[in-house]
């Protein structure tokens, strides 16, 4: 093979590597959302009610305890599961019961779920229902979801907020006992 042909192959080889790098280093483009959609995220970090209410100890019971541990009240650690229902524009996106986290079911209930939704106006209804004495929560948000917007309904213990988009909390029915 002649020298120029060899140099040609070398240049071609490096160009091949360069082309391969360029072909995948910066695209093909990918869109996590379908065209003209936004996203609704439901994020929950919620400490539910105790399964059994705390109980006052009687004086006799207190006396049985070692002197340094004479508490007035004992509480079971376990907390109730919570049923979460999310209805958006009459469509049920989620209806599931969630267990508390932790080995003794004593932690918060955690959830992060996302749904791509066509850009538009929405009415989202969120209901949290405990199994026993849990107080129920029911919130309705009205908001418009622009293209690409990331609307978040955030439940952090007793606070329920609509984040990242402009909307209206239509009905506020806090602490309705079930």
């Amino acid at each position, binding site marked *: 093979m002649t020298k120029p042909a060899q140099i040609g192959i070398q240049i071609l080889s490096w160009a091949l590597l*360069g082309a391969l790098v360029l072909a995948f280093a910066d695209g093909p483009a990918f869109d996590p959302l379908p065209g003209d959609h936004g996203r609704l995220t439901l994020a929950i970090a919620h400490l539910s009610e105790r399964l059994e209410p705390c109980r006052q100890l009687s004086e006799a019971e207190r006396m049985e305890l070692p002197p340094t541990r004479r508490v007035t009240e004992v509480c079971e650690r376990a907390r109730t599961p919570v049923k979460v229902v999310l209805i958006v524009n009459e469509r049920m996106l989620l209806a599931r019961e969630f267990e508390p986290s932790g080995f003794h079911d004593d932690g918060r209930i955690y959830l992060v779920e996302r749904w791509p939704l066509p850009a538009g106006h929405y009415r989202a209804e969120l209901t949290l229902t405990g199994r026993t004495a849990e107080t129920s929560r029911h919130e309705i948000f009205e908001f418009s979801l622009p293209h690409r917007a*990331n609307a978040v309904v955030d439940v952090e213990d007793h606070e329920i907020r609509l984040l990242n*988009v402009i909307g209206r909390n239509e009905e506020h029915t806090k602490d309705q006992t079930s």
Partner: protein
Amino acid sequence: MTGAMARGLARLESWFSSGFLDRFNPFHFLGALTVCFLWIALVTGIYLFIFYRTSLQGAYASVEALTHQQWFAGGIMRSVHRYASDAAVICLVAHLLREMTRGRFRGPRWFSWLTGTPLIWIVVIFGITGYWMVWDEMGQYVAQSTATLLDALPIFTEPMTRNFLTDSAIGGRLFTLIAFIHLVGLPIVIVLGIWFHLMRVRYPRINPPRRLVAGSVLTLLVLSVFVPVTSHPPADMTQVPGPLELDWFYLALLPLIEASSGGVVWMLAAGGTLLLAAFPLLPGGDRRKPAEVYLPDCSGCSYCAEDCPYGAIDMVPRTDGRNFELEARVNPDLCVACGICAGSCPSSSPFRQRTPLTTGIELPDWRVDELRARLSDPPAGRGVIALIGCEHAVELARVDDDRVLAVSLPCIGMLPASTIDHAMRRIGYAGVLLSGCADCDCYHRLGDRWMHERIDWQRPPALRRSVSRERVEVCNLKPGRHAELKAAVAEFRARIEALRDDEDELDRNTERCA
């Protein structure tokens, strides 16, 4: 099947050899090129780090400043850093596929294979944390996706994804942690990982030839000048990022999260890794038995231990009471049965008057006695050539020539140099043509190099100096290039016959003068 694939690969590589020559063929240096690209990423990364701000607020602006305010330095460095990391993935995948195609996961090579597997993860995590650090929309996407992946594992009680609900939710400390992993943690881990990967490979080729380094750097520079890397718009949690010009070399698995779930992506990644790691368990690859030492012929010279490409030979104190300090001992778990040690042992000389011929160390399935016996039965006629080759290189059987006796060895390094002398002086061959793997591509890594050094008197036990080097030729060819081998045989024969004519002429002249 692997045989056909290996031949196909050799044919493809031959095209590159025709341009680069065998000794600079990039396919022969894929592991080393991976290291080279990682080096380039390290050096450019250090430059970027000088100007980079590891805080959530400062990161994006600092990368923008690097890219635009000093495009001629920081911008180029950034592009080279990105493209070098991508080229490293290309070379890594090619390296893996090549080792796989050539069946180099079998036998004791399982160790290099298995320790290579986690390197893929390390490299991918390098890329993911790197994209996170730019904190543009792609960084946001990568952060949210990796958080979703981590949430699919039972590690954290509080989901990682909660950190990315709003701009104010993101922890600056988490961001600094990611930067720390990319800048300090992973560089240390990958150096250790590569060291581990090469622990059983003696004299590994860690650096490619200078010519390939120059080509790599030049290619990256050209890409960086003509297609400089830029950022997406800054991260903004109120928006879903997109459309994104993904770097598919590193992020290809993330879009699967949207299409399926974090759990599915983990299953795919873990399943793929296990499948890859399990390759050494595949049946097939009829393995020869490891080398054996024969103490009566071992003088403890250490040549074999010096030459073994896999460090399978230890020199240990003598156990047979003879008056030598050391003896060779083979660790069968490390021995790939290449036979190179038989070529290193001075006792392998076929001139020794002993039948059968024994030696200090050799393969029980391919003894030096068999080599001497095979060579001692040359075809009749003048100008017969001994063609000694390697079973991983060009196929000798395709040279259909009744004045050639061909012997294929497990590796050309198995050939004791004295055999060449013996073939011509004792048996009467007119010449010896040696045919090993292509330059810098010895299947057993070092056999071809040792053979060259032995016949060039640079390595003991060397060829006797009185042997006419004009009657010894070397022809390194890849499988499939038998046409060139045939041509080499013809050319070699013509040269030897010319020598013979010269010698006859000399003889006649001497007669006349006498």
